[in-house]
């Protein structure tokens, strides 16, 4: 009936630099590990599909970075992922786990189409700001609904944002058949947007000004998180709503604000895709890119600069796997599998790192 416990182990406090280095290793090490494991898993699948992994990955690399055209594709593909990934990161910091990026994106695309097709603005210098504001507002509206539902009624934001995704998607399906339908088309899609409404590009490339919007958003969001009162409050609310409330930080207001920001970023992403790459509204625009953005945010550990790297990786994988499918008859879905394996690795590695502490 006796139990002896070993004396409590007191670890000597380590110098701050050591812990800093360790956290840095985690920040960089975990994503790198995830990439390695993901590519290895992809390699096995490529072998099983009868291909040569070395050759396939070389093709992928070439498809992503092999020239100006490829680079343009990569950058324009990254743009919505970066914007929505940033939106996810801001909301997550406040403890608001929205998966509504797809809905924000769709509603942004619908709004952009409606604005440029219905208003004879005639020039992009007037059209672009109007589209940017309305698309951001539309995205913020959808994001804000989840935010208000959570803040006021405690409705789980994962559920509400998922449901809103459906709501927006079916609105899109209706819009391309009725109010925005192309009278001369056979498939459900809108008319092509007028030429003046298309985003300006760097001459000779596909790189449009939307790319620069995303590039500007990265340091802006980083600054927002680090150096503003909103960023401070969102961290407190995210880590402990009870401490925030007891110290006079309004949890409701902070949650709603971050929901609005993340919605607005999604709306802008949708508008950029429509005016910069798609040029007409169709059902295909709602292709799950909002969920890919969540993958990007997780891989980038919700750090604005990490999100850029993750977006490049994911976007490159998508382009690369399409190229591999064209040239080597290996299914492009291998790219999706690689992404999934990377996410699982990140989640697992994070848990293991937490336990080890």
């Amino acid at each position, binding site marked *: 009936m006796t139990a002896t416990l070993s004396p409590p182990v007191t670890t000597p406090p380590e*110098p*701050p630099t050591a812990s800093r280095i360790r956290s840095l290793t985690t920040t960089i090490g975990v994503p790198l590990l995830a990439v390695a494991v993901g590519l290895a898993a992809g390699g096995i699948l490529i072998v099983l599909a009868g291909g040569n992994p070395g050759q396939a990955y070389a093709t992928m690399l070439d498809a992503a970075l092999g020239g100006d055209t490829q680079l343009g594709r990569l950058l324009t593909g990254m743009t919505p992922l970066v914007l929505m990934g940033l939106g996810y990161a801001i909301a997550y910091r406040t403890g608001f786990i929205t998966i509504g990026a797809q809905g924000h994106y769709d509603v942004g695309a619908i709004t952009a189409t409606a604005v440029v097709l219905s208003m004879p603005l005639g020039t992009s210098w007037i059209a672009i700001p109007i589209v940017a504001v309305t698309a951001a507002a539309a995205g913020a509206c959808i994001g804000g609904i989840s935010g208000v539902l959570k803040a006021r009624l405690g409705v789980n934001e994962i559920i509400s944002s998922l449901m809103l995704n459906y709501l927006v998607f079916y609105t899109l399906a209706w819009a391309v058949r009725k109010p925005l339908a192309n009278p001369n088309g056979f498939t459900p899609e809108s008319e092509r947007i007028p030429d003046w409404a298309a985003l300006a590009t760097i001459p000779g490339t596909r790189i449009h000004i939307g790319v620069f919007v995303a590039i500007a958003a990265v340091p802006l969001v980083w600054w927002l998180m680090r150096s503003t009162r909103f960023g*401070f409050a969102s961290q*407190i609310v995210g*880590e402990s709503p009870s401490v925030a409330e007891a110290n*006079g930080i309004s949890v409701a207001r902070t949650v709603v604000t971050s929901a609005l920001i993340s919605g607005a970023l999604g709306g802008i992403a949708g508008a950029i895709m429509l005016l910069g790459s798609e040029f007409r509204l169709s059902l295909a625009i709602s292709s799950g890119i909002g969920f890919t953005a969540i993958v990007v945010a997780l891989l980038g550990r919700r750090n604005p600069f990490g999100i850029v790297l993750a977006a490049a990786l994911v976007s490159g994988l998508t382009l690369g796997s399409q190229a591999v499918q064209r040239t080597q008859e290996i299914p492009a879905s291998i790219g999706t599998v690689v992404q999934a394996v990377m996410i699982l690795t990140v989640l697992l590695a994070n848990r293991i790192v937490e336990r080890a502490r």
Partner: protein
Amino acid sequence: MVTATSTASITTAAGVAESVPAEGVVMRGIHRSFGENTVLRDVSLHVRPGEVYALLGENGAGKSTLMRILTGLLPPDSGSIAVEGKSLADGGRERIAMVHQHFMLVPSMTVAENFLLGRSRGVIGRKRLRRTEAEIAALAEDTGLACDPTARVENLSVGEQQRVEILRALHLGAGYLLLDEPTANLAPAEVHSLLAQVRRLAAERAVGIVLITHHLEEVLEVADRVGVLRGGRLVAERPIRGDGAESVTTAELARDMVGREVGLGIRRAATEPAGNRMLELVGVSVPGQLHDVTLRVASGQLVAVAGVEGNGQSALEDVLSGLSPDSTGAVVVAEREIDASSPRAMREAGVGIVPADRYTRGLIKSLGIDTNLAIDSYTDPPLARRWGRLSRAAVRERAERIIAALSVKAQSPRTLAGTLSGGHAQRVVLGRVLDGEPDVLVVAQPTRGLDIGATEFVWDTLVDHRSRGAAILLISSDLDEICSLADRIVVLYRGRIVAEFDEGPFDRESLGSAMGGFQEAAA
């Protein structure tokens, strides 16, 4: 008789292996410590079948640790436990059941379904359910614990759920019940019927019952014997009923419970008379928790709210934190009634709060000290800058200043708050609140869980601020703390102020009685 399991390592008080009676629960020489903190020292007690044994003690006296050891949730460092001559591992554990303060029932299930939880694999058959319902009905009839086995738990009152818990324990074959503060959540009428049922269980079914409580009158009403834990030792054991019964008074029990020795010396204010009334509560009530509380604190005065926890302390703290939207009555600071509807309003009125719950209201373990220190002040300059910006330099400067002022042991301002010891974590909370030199300071359970050195630091800090003219309201369940610091004491019992003590030295016996609900004993 005694089982031979590892007898060699058993150390009893006398160091002699005595024979253990085969009946009842026998605990011998129980020691338990957590790190350097010894929670139980050489506790031996014997609970006989058919006996109600009341276990008294202040918060932190070791009651819950002892119960966790007795139910096998925690191994003792040394000492032995035998139940009817068997060790816990050897079938003794099944004979003991604990009824917790917070019930372990699934609300959406019926009583009978709850009984069967975890006792059968797979689907519970209709037949089995009917049989269990019949068994429960019979047991309820037998024991006088009225209960409808087909009722859903969510539709039952607190008292009824408690009866379900007791019945479930008996149904499982428990011969010994540990009741943890069973009357804490009950209405007064339910308290008496529960106590009557407890006596009946002991008398008619020979169940041995350990009743953990703070309420002295309950002890006298129901117990055969009472044991008092103080500072991890069983300091007194008195028979109340039966052979050799002593005529025990609540005053004696109160004295046993709180002890006479003054812990760290009295630190009452200098002889100067107290200044202006800084904080006044007038008729403050919170439905169901606080009733018509009126009190005053002058500047340079420390008024303590004494009482056993759960008697309205947290409601009082909520009101003063601006976190109690349902409260009525007036909060007056510096002779101006203030709007106590938000934490921000309280802070702007000059009221600083040190919350009782350090980690759900005070600190975030996963963030740095610098961030934690900015939580209450980041909207004010110099931390706040124009255009919604936050000055990280000002955040760091403030953190460095407070860390230096309160000698917080931290490698850098960015050290995570979760790595600090309890005492240093409390310094961070204190430092944050005191940095603004608030005119009114509300301090709730400021030394709970702290060691002597840290306690001394907190006390000295409070005394310093009283000397500078702050009006301090100390909400505490630690009588040593209250007697050492207070200029005036009010006692909170079941949400009301039942006694006031105006001048020291304070009489611990009357304080203890008032805390236990005996108003007539109050001076």
